[in-house]
């Protein structure tokens, strides 16, 4: 650690200190599990991005009834579904939708809810009350019901699903961020920053956010997997992604008919969800630890 610090024998402090990102990466790399999560997730994201190169979308939706319900083989490594479509290609294309919705909804929910929660805790009093009571109203409605209603009202489609999921997630994020912020605004360094004549914006950006980012990252990453599952539930209920477009949840929903005779059909998309969720959570844990200078070793 000493070697990473810059020394100046005299004169100015060399502000060539190791850049924050490099420092964080150095700490992150030490966490084996988090690295494993990062690698698995990267592979999945790469597969999703280059899905078209792995197998065309056309081949993922074209039926081939002669080859239906085949067991996994070298030709179809995940086997084929009830319409003879290659499950591996469908899983890859499904990842495109699932991962995109998972990340987009989590990040958008984190930003909207986080900003709301932080501002609400920072200014407190009546504003805080107004915001939190409004959010209480939202959280009184079951998430899936709210999402269902919104999708029914706005119509199906990826963007509408994301909007519905984000709205249903805002209260949870706002509450978590508000709670962490309340713990930080009482600290003397916030008062010191005020005594230094800095602005509220500066205080939130430099003092509050860095000190609440830990729980927020964990929450966001945990949320990605639950967003993937929510999308799956919506698809399962017929309000998510419409057939024949593949999506992990929809794949499970389709496979349930064959669960007795071809259990692998439900196993593979299920594995995709589990792997993605687990690796995102591990990544989030590692990131939280890497971001905290107090934990550096």
């Amino acid at each position: 650690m000493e070697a990473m610090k810059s020394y100046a024998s005299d004169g100015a402090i060399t502000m060539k200190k190791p850049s924050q990102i490099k420092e964080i990466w150095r700490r992150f790399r030490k966490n084996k599990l988090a690295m494993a999560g990062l690698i698995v997730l990267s592979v999945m994201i790469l597969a999703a991005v280059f899905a078209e190169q792995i197998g065309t979308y056309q081949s993922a939706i074209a039926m081939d009834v002669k080859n239906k319900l085949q067991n996994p083989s070298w030709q179809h490594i995940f086997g084929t579904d009830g319409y003879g479509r290659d499950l591996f290609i469908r899983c890859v294309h499904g990842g495109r939708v699932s991962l995109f919705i998972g990340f987009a909804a989590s990040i958008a929910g984190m930003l909207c809810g986080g900003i709301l929660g932080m501002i609400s805790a920072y200014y407190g009093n009546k504003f805080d009350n107004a915001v939190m009571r409004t959010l209480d109203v939202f959280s009184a409605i079951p998430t899936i019901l709210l999402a269902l209603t919104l999708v029914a009202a706005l119509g199906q489609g990826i963007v509408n699903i994301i909007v519905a999921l984000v709205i249903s997630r805002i209260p949870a994020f706002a509450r978590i961020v508000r709670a962490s912020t309340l713990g930080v605004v009482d600290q003397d360094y916030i008062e010191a920053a005020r005594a230094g004549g800095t602005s509220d914006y500066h205080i939130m950006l430099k003092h509050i956010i860095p000190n609440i980012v830990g729980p927020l990252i964990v929450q966001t990453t945990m949320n990605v997997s639950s967003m993937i599952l929510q999308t799956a539930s919506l698809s399962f209920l017929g309000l998510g992604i419409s057939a024949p477009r593949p999506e992990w949840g929809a794949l499970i929903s389709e496979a349930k008919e064959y669960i007795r005779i071809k259990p692998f059909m439900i196993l593979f998309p299920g594995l995709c969800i589990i792997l993605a969720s687990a690796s995102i959570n591990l990544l989030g844990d590692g990131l939280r630890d890497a971001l905290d200078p107090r934990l550096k070793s």
Partner: protein
Amino acid sequence: MGASQPLLETRNLKKYFNTAAGKLHAVDDISVRIMRRETLGVVGESGCGKSTLGRTILRLIEPTDGAILFKGEDITRLKAAGMREMRMRMQIIFQDPYSSINPRMSVSEIIAEYMLFHKMYRTRAEAWNRTAQLMNTVGLARRLANAYPHELDGGRRQRIGIARALSMNPEFIVCDEPVSALDVSIQAQILNLLLELQREFGLTYLFITHDLSVVKHISDEIMVMYLGQCVEQAPADELFANPRHPYTKALLSAIPVPDISMRDREIVTIRGEVKSPINPGIGCRFAGRCEYALDRCLQADVPLVGLSEKHLCACVRAGEV
């Protein structure tokens, strides 16, 4: 401005907090004058409003009533922008060196924060130069520039807080119990540092403490607070030699004297509990615990009267006891 104009003056400063039970009189009618390059020590027991007074003077807490004059200018009337300017001239050093600095920032970032925010220097390099200079001034080794607060002990952390306060080139600093959270050996270092800085930069301090031996060492004048009010104010030597308020007497008598011949000296102890600061009502707030209390102590508020030019005391029997 004339030599007799105080650098900082408060006039009938009041801060009441609204609580469920009523109005909490944290700072009640405090008028002080602090001359340039002097130190006003504020002593009193926990909860008597010392820290609230310090924070109210800096408008970190908005006063309920009264005026705060900095070089004759009433800062309670300043708008946000004017106050931002004013903050460069008035700073604060906190009691707890653990919560007063952001654990996510490195030492140099903490010290340079205000300078960078206010763009006090044209280039970042100049600001870093100044940071290095400040670290030197407060006695922090330069190799600590990129260290994080958790790697440092309380004394060093407090030095960071002092450097940060100095970065704005202030004229007036509120020291809110700056040594009470530190080990005794480090207390002396920090106190001496504060005294040196005062000499070097011509600083004016409002020094809040509950430690009487500290306050005598550092103050020119001392104000004794009890439940939000000033009960006695005098030059430091005068106060220690000739305390007039029964509360001050009791406080001074509680200082341990490391002298064997003094073991038989009488110690005045205060009985009873501090009265609640919520809706305290009229009359002397100390009367319930005072051995000299008379009926008239409770019939009307006891004004702060001058016993001599610089010695003020709020006791109806100040002349006799």
